[in-house]
């Protein structure tokens, strides 16, 4: 039995989605002439500014393409569903956004992405464009703390890209944008929970098994197994498990400020995300933390997976300023 999707040919899903995105958001986005899978911000890239190029597999919209725009990423390299883009679109992004101050690649820590973006960076070096890389590793469930560099990048990309994009928009040097990106990544913590599997447009079959009535805490955004599977629990208990881990990792002092993202994975209604947020805020309050800003919605999805993630960014003055800086992207704005 094939899963139900509103698509035409599954092999065309990514390109047809991009067509629709460009028709909707042509005021902010355009495709590179060198590669239709390189989506460039119409406003943003400029002489003397560090270029920020993000990217990864499709199926996580609005991540990555929705965060391209003035004040955030200058371009995104778009892969097939759940698959890294090849080097060509990433290289096209570099060539389009390079303003002479260097380019920063930022993407989630996955083996395929690393190989393809590294190849693109090597090719860019042949054009005398300096490209550096900061991998996002915010998923605290994906590896133990002493192996934090092995963790996956998930919904926390939202905050990490935002901070780095704002730093580049402030015309910081490549050194400083890289420093901010690493700092933002080190202070961003995400935990997810999945309630149902998802299916790829090309196969239209469930890509992992998660029976009715069960949930999996810590599951990755491509269905990578998490840390605990069991019967579905009330929202407050699920959030408590996530927040226990996040608060422990964060080690914040009373009075510290945070930014919060309660993110839907695709099929979970806003009602449930707001119910989760209620408990997230209660736990932050109990810990003496002040929430500076909160976003609730679908920011990093996994096709039609049901579930959610909670991301907390531990702010300091610099990160707070960068998160607050206005940006104008196709699917995300700060005014």
């Amino acid at each position: 039995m094939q899963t139900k999707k509103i698509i035409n040919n599954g092999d065309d899903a990514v390109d047809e989605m991009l067509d629709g995105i460009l028709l909707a958001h042509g005021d902010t986005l355009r495709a590179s002439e060198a590669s239709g899978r390189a989506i460039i911000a119409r406003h943003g890239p400029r002489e003397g500014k560090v270029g920020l190029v993000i990217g990864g597999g499709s199926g996580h919209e609005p991540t990555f393409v929705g965060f391209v725009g003035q004040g955030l990423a200058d371009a995104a390299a778009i892969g097939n569903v759940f698959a890294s883009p090849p080097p060509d679109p990433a290289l096209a992004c570099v060539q389009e956004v390079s303003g002479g101050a260097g380019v920063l690649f930022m993407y989630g820590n996955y083996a395929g992405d690393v190989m393809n973006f590294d190849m693109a960076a090597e090719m860019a070096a042949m054009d005398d464009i300096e490209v550096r890389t900061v991998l996002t590793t915010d998923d605290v469930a994906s590896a133990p703390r002493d192996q934090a560099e092995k963790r996956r990048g998930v919904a926390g990309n939202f905050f990490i890209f935002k901070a780095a994009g704002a730093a580049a928009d402030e015309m910081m040097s490549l050194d400083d944008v890289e420093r901010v990106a690493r700092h933002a990544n080190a202070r961003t913590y995400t935990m997810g929970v999945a309630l149902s599997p998802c299916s790829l447009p090309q196969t239209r079959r469930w890509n992992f098994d998660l029976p009715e009535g069960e949930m999996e805490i810590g599951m990755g955004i491509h269905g990578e197994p998490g840390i605990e599977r069991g019967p579905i629990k009330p929202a407050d208990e699920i959030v408590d498990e996530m927040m226990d881990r996040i608060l422990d990792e964060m080690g914040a002092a009373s009075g510290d400020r945070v930014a919060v993202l309660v993110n839907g994975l695709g099929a979970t209604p806003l009602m449930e995300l707001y119910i989760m947020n209620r408990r997230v805020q209660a736990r932050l309050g109990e810990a003496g933390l002040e929430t500076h800003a909160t976003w609730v919605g679908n920011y990093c999805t996994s096709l039609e997976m049901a579930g959610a993630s909670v991301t907390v960014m531990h702010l300091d003055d610099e990160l707070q300023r960068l998160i607050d800086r206005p940006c104008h992207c196709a699917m995300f704005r700060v005014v």
Partner: protein
Amino acid sequence: MTGDDIKAMLLAVADAMDAARDELCALDGEIGDADHGIAMSGGFGAVRTALSGMDGGTPTEVFNAAAKSFLNAVGASSGPLYATAFMRAGAAVKGSEVLSDADAPALVEAMAEGISHRGKAEPGDKTMLDAWAPAAEAARAAAGQPAAEVFAAAATAAEKGAEATSQMQAKLGRAARLGARSLGHRDPGAVSAAMMLRAMTAAL
């Protein structure tokens, strides 16, 4: 082996990957994200298109065209790995219009080296290298025999290697996050590597 023979081998792989698409996706679904069959079938579909529109060509040119088309169609992990494998194979026989039986081991070894170099995996990490490394060893041991025998030996070794991955715990790639839960499942990249060598053998 001429450039046309290399084309025939790669086209045979394309057919084999189309036939195995759902099987490879299902294998990947057990320990990964269920898209390996899509990547291999889509990648070799692009190779088929590129080679079908290619007039003549030396073995090196055929391998380079395959590398470029595979890489740009796929990305993912398999894109850079097989692109590097094919480029290394092309480089190994650079300057030759017609390959002899003596070149066959070098082709398999070059592909294995390319995958090892790009992926930085070690044998036993439960990756496609666990099929390619024994394949290269078997091809080296079969040196002096006809090319079809060399590839057959490599394919058999790759099949055994792929089978053995079910006893390995993944250390790289998405399955690495599974730890011990990856035991008992074959690595889909190793399985498709064995299928590839078997299809190449059948085309010779």
